[in-house]
């Protein structure tokens, strides 16, 4: 009797306090409270003899009801193992009460057995209780671990989210940066195109003065020889009138010779204008069979006179060593002409610089102006056929290129000239034209002038292109 009621009390207490049953409280707490009060009431009643039997029955009913609820209600599922612990006691108490009710004598006869069974049920309860408690503890530890893991997972999740936000931010920043750079690259490309155009125009400007000189010279002959011929024809008429056939024939021969000269110099002017147009025109990109020697000679003269027009006191000895066995070579004439012109202009610049330097160092020593300098600025343009390769060399005896800038000379925008005098694109353009458009090589050999007396210095640029 006491046992059942104590058990009921214990169970209700357990249900209201244990964390395993916590989820039941919102719905079931009031029933548990009622059950508990009822159990306490019954416990008090059980001290009064007449109520003993009823309270015993009520205790059995409460416990059975609890069992029933625990077995049928889903939410009690986690507590099911507990029911195994209490079931034997409840059932045994109910059965023994039932037996007592049906046959008191039978119960009394087998009182020992019921007592023993009850004892075993209690032992069972305690044993199972201990076991579940142990299991609970282990489970609790597991649960704590799982919780910990969950927490860590949540932390890592939140970190992941934060990282994702960061990544998105960075990606956006990088994309913006990329677009900005792309725009800068586009701007640079158009600037480069403009610079290439202005480099062309600059070299055309250098040419213009040379071209003026080169055209005025043939024109001088064309104009004057034709005027002479007019006079000669008048003289020839006079001679014929006088009947002096010998004289008339001699004059006719002169006229003929002059006519040839007019023709020759007219063609010369024509070739110069054509060359100028070719230079200013944007490159057709088409390779044509070209007389390399004539091309080199033409640009040597143009470059020389161009420089001469700019600097009145400048002069240099031009030498040509052409390999006459070179016939026509397939090149893009405008582009190759531009390369040759650039190399020659550089060579003239180099010898002019050295001459200026020597003149400056001699100023103090009051040299006799009538004695020519022993330094003879010389630019040599030579061509050579070597196997299936054509070499075009431009050599100067200037100051040479210092070692520290030698590896930079083909870089775009690198220039040693004062600001405004060089675009720094000449050699880089030349390099591209020779290597990319013509499948050739552009090499440089140089010996720097260290300022020692009588020392040889200078630079040789060699264009090497395939003969076919």
């Amino acid at each position, binding site marked *: 009797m006491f046992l059942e009621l104590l058990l009921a009390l214990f169970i209700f207490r357990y249900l209201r306090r244990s964390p395993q049953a916590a989820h039941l409280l919102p719905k079931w707490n009031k029933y548990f409270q009622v059950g508990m009060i009822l159990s306490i009431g019954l416990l008090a009643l059980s001290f009064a003899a007449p109520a003993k039997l009823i309270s015993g029955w009520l205790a059995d009913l409460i416990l059975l009801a609890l069992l029933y609820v625990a077995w049928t209600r889903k939410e009690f599922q986690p507590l099911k193992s507990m029911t195994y612990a209490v079931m034997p006691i409840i059932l045994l108490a109910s059965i023994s009460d039932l037996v007592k009710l049906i046959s008191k004598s039978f119960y009394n006869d087998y009182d020992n057995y019921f007592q023993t069974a009850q004892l075993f049920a209690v032992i069972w309860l305690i044993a199972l209780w201990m076991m579940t408690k142990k299991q609970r503890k282990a489970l609790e530890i597991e649960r704590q671990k799982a919780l910990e893991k969950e927490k860590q997972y949540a932390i890592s999740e939140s970190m992941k989210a934060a990282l994702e936000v960061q990544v998105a931010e960075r990606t956006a920043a990088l994309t913006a940066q990329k677009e900005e750079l792309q725009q800068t690259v586009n701007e640079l490309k158009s600037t480069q195109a403009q610079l290439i155009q202005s480099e062309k125009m600059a070299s055309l400007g250098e040419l213009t003065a040379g071209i003026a*000189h080169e055209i*005025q010279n043939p024109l001088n002959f064309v104009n004057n020889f034709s005027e002479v011929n007019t006079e000669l024809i008048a003289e020839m008429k006079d001679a014929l009138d006088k009947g002096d056939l010998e004289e008339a024939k001699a004059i006719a021969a002169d006229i003929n010779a002059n006519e040839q000269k007019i023709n020759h110099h007219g063609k010369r002017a024509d070739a110069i204008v054509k060359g100028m147009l070719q230079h200013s025109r944007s490159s057709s990109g088409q390779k044509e069979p070209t007389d390399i020697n004539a091309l080199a000679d033409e640009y040597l003269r143009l470059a020389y006179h161009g420089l001469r027009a700019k600097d*009145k006191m400048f002069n240099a000895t031009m030498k040509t060593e052409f390999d006459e066995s070179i016939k026509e070579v397939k090149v893009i004439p405008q582009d190759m002409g531009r390369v040759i012109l650039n190399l020659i202009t550089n060579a003239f610049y180099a010898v002019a610089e050295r001459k200026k330097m020597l003149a400056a160092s001699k100023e103090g020593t009051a040299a006799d102006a009538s004695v020519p300098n022993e330094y003879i600025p010389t630019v040599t343009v030579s061509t050579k056929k070597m196997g299936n390769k054509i070499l075009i060399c431009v050599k100067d005896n200037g100051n040479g290129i210092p070692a520290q800038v030698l590896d930079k000379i083909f870089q775009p925008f690198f220039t040693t000239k004062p600001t405004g005098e060089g675009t720094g694109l000449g050699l880089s353009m030349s390099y591209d034209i020779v290597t990319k458009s013509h499948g050739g090589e552009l090499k440089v050999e140089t010996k720097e002038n260290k300022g020692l007396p009588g020392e040889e210095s200078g630079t040789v640029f060699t264009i090497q292109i395939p003969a076919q």
Partner: protein
Amino acid sequence: MKILVVDDEKDIQTLFEQRFRKEIRDGSIQFAFAFSGEDALAYLNGHEAVLILSDINMPGMSGLELLSHIKHMYLKPPPVVMMITAYGDAENFNTAKQLGADDFLTKPVDFNLLKEKLKLIH
């Protein structure tokens, strides 16, 4: 009158000889030709010339250098030097004048004008 003409263009000789054929025939003018500044200096070492016509743009020694040499060499009386150039710009003109050039002609050469100038020197 003896005239030395200095120009790197060889045809200049034929041109002058034809342009001045009357003067050459009647002996009023004798011509000598040099095709570089160096040649001209070498010629002047052994000969005398009254008038020197010189081209400015020549390979090697330029006309202006030649001019300055001539004006240094002949202190008294220095020969008349006329410069001929394809560049008729003021800068060239002034440089030539500064160095002592007596006159300045541009190419293409106007021979009638040249003859007028020669008469004045006579």
